[in-house]
């Protein structure tokens, strides 16, 4: 069994050239839980599983991820000799790795929503007289709208029933909710100005 601290440590590892490493690790572990694979095989399985989400993920990402998982004792590599060719490594889950996959699947924590941090920014800006909260809200609205446009354009370009479209729908709905909340903020801070 891996000490808990080490597992927690995993989440603190630096992002891997853009991709959030943690989620790549979780997906790799989940795929290995079904079937041990060597690196190249795993890359193909991952590409299939991630579909359009895997676009920016390359072999390097996967080997770095496997190396880190191995170090954390969540996977182990077995050498398999091949006639006439160099040995290759087949990766499989350790007991701790299996445990971790179960934890991940049953974990119901949800990504931290934006409101609290932005709310505190507004409160602090107003309290310190540093900036007009309404101006901050206007600026933030512009940012979110640009993100919304990007996501909804991408969604409109997807054929009906596409899995990428489903994901983009989630991105769009989330941004809409944030923008509606910003309107509530604008109402409140306008009233507070008197």
């Amino acid at each position, binding site marked *: 069994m891996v000490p808990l601290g080490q597992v927690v440590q995993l989440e603190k590892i630096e992002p891997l050239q853009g*991709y*959030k490493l943690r989620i790549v690790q979780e997906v790799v572990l989940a795929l290995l839980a079904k079937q041990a694979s060597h690196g190249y095989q795993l890359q193909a399985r991952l590409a299939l599983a991630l579909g359009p989400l895997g676009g*920016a993920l390359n072999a390097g990402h996967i080997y770095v991820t496997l190396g880190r998982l191995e170090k954390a004792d969540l996977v182990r590599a077995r050498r398999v000799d091949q006639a006439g060719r160099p040995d290759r490594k087949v990766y499989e889950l350790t007991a701790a790795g299996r445990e971790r996959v179960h934890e991940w699947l049953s974990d119901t924590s949800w*990504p931290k929503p934006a409101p609290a941090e932005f709310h505190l920014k507004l409160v602090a800006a107003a309290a310190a007289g540093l900036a007009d909260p309404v101006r901050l809200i206007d600026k933030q609205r512009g940012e979110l*709208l640009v*993100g919304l446009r990007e996501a909804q*354009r991408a969604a409109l370009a997807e054929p009906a029933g596409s899995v990428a479209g489903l994901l983009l729908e989630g991105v769009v709905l989330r941004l809409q909710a944030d*923008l509606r909340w910003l309107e509530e903020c604008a109402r409140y801070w306008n009233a507070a100005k008197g």
Partner: protein
Amino acid sequence: MTVESETSVLSAQGLCKEYGKGAALVRAVQAVTLEVERGELVAVVGPSGCGKSTLLHLLGGLERPTAGSVRLGGSALERMPEAQQARIRRRDLGFVFQAFHLVDELTALENVELPALLAGASPRGARARASELLAQVGLADRASHLPSALSGGQQQRVAIARALANEPLLVLADEPTGNLDSSATTELLRLFEQLHARGQTVVVVTHDERIAATADRLISMRDGAFVDETKLAGGTARPLSAMAGLEA
């Protein structure tokens, strides 16, 4: 003397609109100045009662301002005789207003082709364009329905198609998604994006974030005045994993 850009489709200077007198005085629009460039999509947002609809009425020459001026395609609306104003409204403007009624006795298709016929288009050309527009708003299969046989959202989409019949210089839209559910709104979004891509100039008043997000420029109104203006930069599309927050 105001400097007007060559590409300006709409230019409003110091627009004011007041209703009532004395204690009942309402300053619905206060000193609004606005330039809209050819091909621009401008969204106006703001709380209920802040003067958005009044502003659109002034921009479209449907109401006369208490002060200020509106120039459409270079000509000053308030200097024209009413007949000429009406002609310009028919030819150069497309209105999409929430309470803009369809002609009850005409089918959806006939409603959409009406503005083109009034402007002197050939019946065949008007019909072809009307059919295409109805298809664009997702109502190809409702072409022969009377308005009374259409849902509120469908009637609204017919009104939008009708506004586009004459390929107007400027489309003025007041809450075009007001009665639409989410999937109908998506259809309308698609239409807005297409219009925009084709260079149609639009000023839209909206509460819908999705419509606002299609704009090049977002104007916030409060108490009759413009209080903020944000340019929404194009921004190249990122990979799906980045949009979905999978990349750090």
